[in-house]
């Protein structure tokens, strides 16, 4: 089946070559980091997690977001999603792969990675995150591959998915919720970090995931429609837009609740990080433009999704989804993780700036993720189009 991804236009190969180049630059940078240590990055004693872990956190959300296609189709028999659930499942494979890569490049001693299995420690949330992420990767590989492969084997008549796969599909739905809940628990269970110590962390993670994941799928579906004959269909796209709109609004509502609790209670520890993120704290304000941009882009995106004129025009729809994706990426892929370290437990304010090498590694992992999703989508769409013709 993989041979379907080995035939493509020159544009396809140019895109893959471009991604391979970024992966290569990232790999060379990682080689340097591997032999020098994490001092290669901009992280420090006070900001001990940087871009790698913040990207990891964001990508868990993108992976979980695919369930917004799987659930309506398999639980509510929502037929319009029948052709595109595979986009959610294959996106999850690429996103979880990126998560694992981000974890590995963040480890100080990556060669000892298997210690997590050799010395299983159930009281550590990282242990559970390892289980749910790898489990989710396995489920999506199994389900996605089985569904596409069934079609591949029978290109002339429709085949229902094999019966044995159904339980795995149903398990994958709560499992998607679990990956983002456990990832939120990495932060929400730490006693000394007021910004993260909030029961709304997991719900907020899920809301942003259910907006960011489908937003990316809509963007990719619109691109696929331009570069191939595969059309996700107006109804499916518009249903996803509704989901994205609500999820984004819920996400902003949750952020508003964080503001209320912090500023009405007036407890300095709870206000400090929000101050740092949105107004600056004692002269430190490296993330302020980003966070304000995040709010603005998110607001514009939601308004565009709610306005029929921009919602039903593919170009403006794509733009709106891109704005929302960018907004959520800044909110969770930068502010949430990096902000939590400011101020430090000893009340120092240390700002974090990633180094060039760190950026190269981060971009390399993103490019690797795009390569995976391109190959998988190419394969799935080729099989689908062969059948439909």
């Amino acid at each position, binding site marked *: 089946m993989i041979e379907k991804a080995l035939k493509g236009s020159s544009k396809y190969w140019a895109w893959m070559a471009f991604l391979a180049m970024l992966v290569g630059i990232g790999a060379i940078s990682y080689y340097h980091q591997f032999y*020098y*240590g*994490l*001092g290669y990055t901009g*992280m*420090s*004693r*006070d900001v*001990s*997690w940087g871009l790698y872990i913040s990207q990891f956190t964001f990508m868990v959300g993108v992976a979980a977001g695919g369930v917004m296609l799987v659930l309506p189709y398999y639980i509510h028999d929502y037929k319009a999603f029948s052709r595109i659930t595979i986009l959610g499942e294959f996106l999850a494979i690429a996103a979880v792969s990126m998560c694992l890569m981000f*974890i590995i490049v*963040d*480890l*100080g*001693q*990556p060669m*000892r*990675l298997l*210690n*997590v299995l*050799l*010395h299983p*420690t159930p*009281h*550590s*949330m*990282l*242990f559970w995150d*390892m289980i749910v992420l790898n489990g989710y990767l396995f489920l999506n590989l199994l389900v996605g591959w089985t569904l596409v492969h069934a079609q591949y084997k029978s290109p002339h008549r429709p085949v229902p998915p094999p019966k044995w796969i159904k339980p795995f599909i149903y398990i994958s739905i709560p499992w998607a919720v679990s990956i983002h809940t456990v990832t939120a628990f*990495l*932060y929400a*269970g*730490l*006693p*000394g*970090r007021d910004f993260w110590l909030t029961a709304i962390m997991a719900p907020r993670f899920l809301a942003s995931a259910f907006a960011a994941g489908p937003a990316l799928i809509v963007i990719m579906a619109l691109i696929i429609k331009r570069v191939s004959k595969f059309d996700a269909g107006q109804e499916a796209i518009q249903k996803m837009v509704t989901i994205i709109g609500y999820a984004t609004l819920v996400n902003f509502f949750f952020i508003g609740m964080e503001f209320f609790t912090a500023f009405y209670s007036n407890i300095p520890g709870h206000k400090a990080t929000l101050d740092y993120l949105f107004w600056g704290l004692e002269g430190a304000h490296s993330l302020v433009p980003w966070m304000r941009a995040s709010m603005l882009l998110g607001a514009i995106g939601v308004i565009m999704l709610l306005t029929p004129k921009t919602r039903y025009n593919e170009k403006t729809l794509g733009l709106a989804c891109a704005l929302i994706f960018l907004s959520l990426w800044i909110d969770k892929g930068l502010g949430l993780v990096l902000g*939590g*370290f400011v101020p*430090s*437990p*000893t009340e*120092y304010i240390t700002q974090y700036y990633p180094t060039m090498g760190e950026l190269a590694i981060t971009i390399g992992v993103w490019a690797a993720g795009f390569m995976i999703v391109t190959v998988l989508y190419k394969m799935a769409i080729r099989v689908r189009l062969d059948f439909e013709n």
Partner: protein
Amino acid sequence: MTLCNHCDDPPCVRACPTKATFKSMDNGIVMMDYHRCIGCRFCMAACPYGARSFNWRNPRPFIKKINPDFPTRMRGVVEKCTFCAERLAEGKIPACVEATGDTKAMVFGDLNDPHSEISQVLESTFTIQRKPRLGTRPSIFYII
């Protein structure tokens, strides 16, 4: 590096995915196996006291005199104050306490032994712990 509070219920131990950091069964000291640590730095996020540090690069070129009694140091792992566990094993007291000499600025001993010097000091002096509200029950008391 900050003094570790050697919590009775340490959040760093809870966070560690490999048990590289653990509470000693013998004396309750929060210990660290530098050679099991994978360098994920979850403990650094978990510690409410900023007591943990990470070797962002190889520390060996910076060591002027090698101490063969201390586990060999390396990059990519978290380090912490262990109350000089390797000295305690030989019946000595932690280096920082020894450095204060007879000033009694620092007192070290067994909190569970009511007759120990530290227990006497806690009885007779006003002391505070850092962030007691977090329920970590630090074993470090600051004499006021």
